[in-house]
């Protein structure tokens, strides 16, 4: 930040001991940003389906490639995690769940839930033989 005089600044991230709740707060932003660009992939999918078989085949071959699968797996987890993180924030918006025990429990639960749900989604896709 440009300032005319070097006024003291409030302490930022580096002075705090890293904690799960802090990491999740940052991850909520990072997943949100990733999903922001992921929206273009979502539109590409629907767009390709609208354009015709060749465009759809191109999309599918990219999606089925190894980098494509890695990106789609990351996309799935980011989406599920941001969704659960968002629900957590909506609970906090009502003024509930701010005591340390609850906050820590919600943090652990949200990580466990996002990982589990992501794995379940991919298991359903893979075991239903849907994977291209």
């Amino acid at each position, binding site marked *: *930040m440009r300032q005319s005089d070097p006024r003291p600044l409030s302490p930022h991230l580096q002075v705090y001991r890293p904690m799960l709740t802090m990491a999740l707060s940052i991850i909520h932003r990072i997943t949100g940003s990733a999903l922001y660009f992921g929206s273009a992939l979502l539109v590409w999918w629907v767009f390709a389906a609208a354009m015709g078989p060749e465009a759809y085949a191109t999309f599918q071959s990219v999606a089925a490639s190894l980098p494509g699968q890695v990106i789609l797996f990351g996309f799935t987890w980011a989406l599920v995690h941001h969704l659960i993180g968002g629900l957590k924030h909506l609970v906090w918006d009502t003024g509930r769940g701010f005591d340390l025990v609850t906050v820590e429990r919600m943090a652990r639960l949200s990580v466990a839930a996002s990982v589990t749900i992501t794995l379940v989604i991919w298991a359903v896709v893979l075991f239903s033989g849907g994977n291209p």
Partner: protein
Amino acid sequence: MSSFRTPLGRVRGLGSAKSGTAHFWQQRATAIAGVPLVLFLIWLAVNLAGADYATARSLLSHPAVTIVLALSFFVILKHMRLGMQVIIEDYVHVESWKMIVLLANSVFTYVVGAGALYALARLTFGAMQ
């Protein structure tokens, strides 16, 4: 500086900009609306993963699916534009850059939205290839 206005008086009418809580409120409203819509998108993607073109095309152009997709894009794009705006305002402090990046945020959102709009229109009105 002390104010003679009551807290209620200050908050009523949302202040001089008349939009004090609009951003916060829209972020929450689109978040709540996004929950069922994202669940729908996950269901749709799982359903069509690896499906052939004809199956994908016929499901995506089903009126109910196309309409909920339109809702999803509208809500999601609004939510992500608001979210990215906050991130930009938090981290970009040079005024000229901030303005450019905020405009880029809007441009990106509208371009993605225009692509979605065209795709949904073509799914609905276009002949199956």
